[in-house]
């Protein structure tokens, strides 16, 4: 189908974009890569009178390392993120997650900020942001503020930003030397939304005890989620005493709104989710132990 008519705005700078959002309020939506928004417009699942295209705002594209974090501009395409050497070195969980996002013809257009702001429960970068404790930078007419990843995802396709705020960048903290990272997901066909998946980051101390652990879950709720019970259970323990099955089981133990659809029941998704966490835990701890 074709999208219903809308007015198009192409601001050259963030402050112009924010002014447009402030002017039109809930009648406006930010258009970045359009790989989620345009299908929804085409199927007429949603409509906005005004689209504010931020994809050509130069200050929103780029990757740099500062203050021990990888800062990625919101309009940076997935394909840039996936190929970037600095990201692979300093926030490898992003590099590992990128190939799971759609197909290469989607990753050329889709943007990191768009994927995170869209807040789909199966969004890989959102799960990575949760696992790494990323900070979202949001700009509005009232100024700039940081929103921790833990507070960003508020509901299905809903985030903590006001209607006149734009996500301008995401800062992914660089984890310590003895760290390991892994992403596992299961989908019926490659490139589809995951039935369930996990992004795991783990850091060990000198004595091979877990000093830090972040587990992002995909497709297991109405938002991207953390496997907090598993994170809490492993920190401080010797990595050799922890089984992957235990981590998987705990990671999904507090979930209470696992979706059920034609692809699988809630019980099935929970089981797949636990398995994905367990597999990612095994890879991440093996890497951290050898680091």
């Amino acid at each position, binding site marked *: 189908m*074709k999208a219903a*008519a809308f007015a*198009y705005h192409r601001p050259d700078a963030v402050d112009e974009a924010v002014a447009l959002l402030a002017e039109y309020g809930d009648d406006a939506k930010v258009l970045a890569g359009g790989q989620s928004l345009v299908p929804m417009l*085409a*199927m007429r699942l949603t409509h906005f009178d005004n689209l504010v295209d931020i994809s050509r705002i130069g200050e929103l594209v780029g990757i740099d390392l500062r203050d021990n974090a990888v800062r990625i501009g919101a309009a940076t395409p997935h394909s840039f993120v996936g190929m970037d050497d600095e990201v692979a070195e300093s926030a490898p969980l992003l590099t590992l997650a990128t190939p799971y996002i759609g197909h*290469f013809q989607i990753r050329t257009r889709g943007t990191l900020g768009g994927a995170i702001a869209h807040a789909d429960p199966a969004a890989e970068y959102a799960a990575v942001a949760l696992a790494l404790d990323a900070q979202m930078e949001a700009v509005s007419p009232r100024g700039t503020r940081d929103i921790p990843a833990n507070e960003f995802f508020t509901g299905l396709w809903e985030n903590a930003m006001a209607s006149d705020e734009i996500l301008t960048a995401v800062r992914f903290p660089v984890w310590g030397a003895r760290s390991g990272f892994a992403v596992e997901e299961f989908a019926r066909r490659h490139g589809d939304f995951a039935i369930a998946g996990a992004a795991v980051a783990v850091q060990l101390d000198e004595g091979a005890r877990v000093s830090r652990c972040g587990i992002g879950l995909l497709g297991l709720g109405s938002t991207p989620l953390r496997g907090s019970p598993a994170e809490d259970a492993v920190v401080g323990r010797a990595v050799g005493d922890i089984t992957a099955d235990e981590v998987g089981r705990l990671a999904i133990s507090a979930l209470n709104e696992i979706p059920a659809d034609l692809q699988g029941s809630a019980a099935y998704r929970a089981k797949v989710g636990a398995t994905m966490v367990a597999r990612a835990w095994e890879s991440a701890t093996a890497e951290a132990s050898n680091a």
Partner: protein
Amino acid sequence: MHEWPVKVSVNGQPTEATVEPRLTLADYLRERCGLTGTHLGCEHGACGACTVLVDGQALRSCLMFAVQADGCEVTTVEGVASEDGELAPVQAALRECHGLQCGFCTPGFVMSITALLRDNPTPSDEEIREGLSGNFCRCTGYQGIINAVHRAAEMQA
């Protein structure tokens, strides 16, 4: 709604029009430029039939509005063969290896394979399957298509 002027270079030819913002790049190419080689299957980014190159990057032209392509270089399936009509290696290989049946999906595959081989001139079977997983062939002639990618890689070596 307010219309926008756009200038798009299509297969090296400058084009110009005033468009409604909701007009997709795919419809611009088909209806305004008369280039009906770019096919529309699903119109929501699932099937890959409308794949074109924009500034060299393969993307789905049904998920980009024509206004967003203002000032860009677009290559469609009509721009792949040489000017005298000789098929490009990707097209010749698809014909040789029976990589098409009804042909509806073929323009999208030609563009995806063109981008794939440019970035990775000697892909493995797995890399080809991964690279083409975003293009559907409802005749399900995938084996011939994969063989054609290997053949095109040989021809371009």
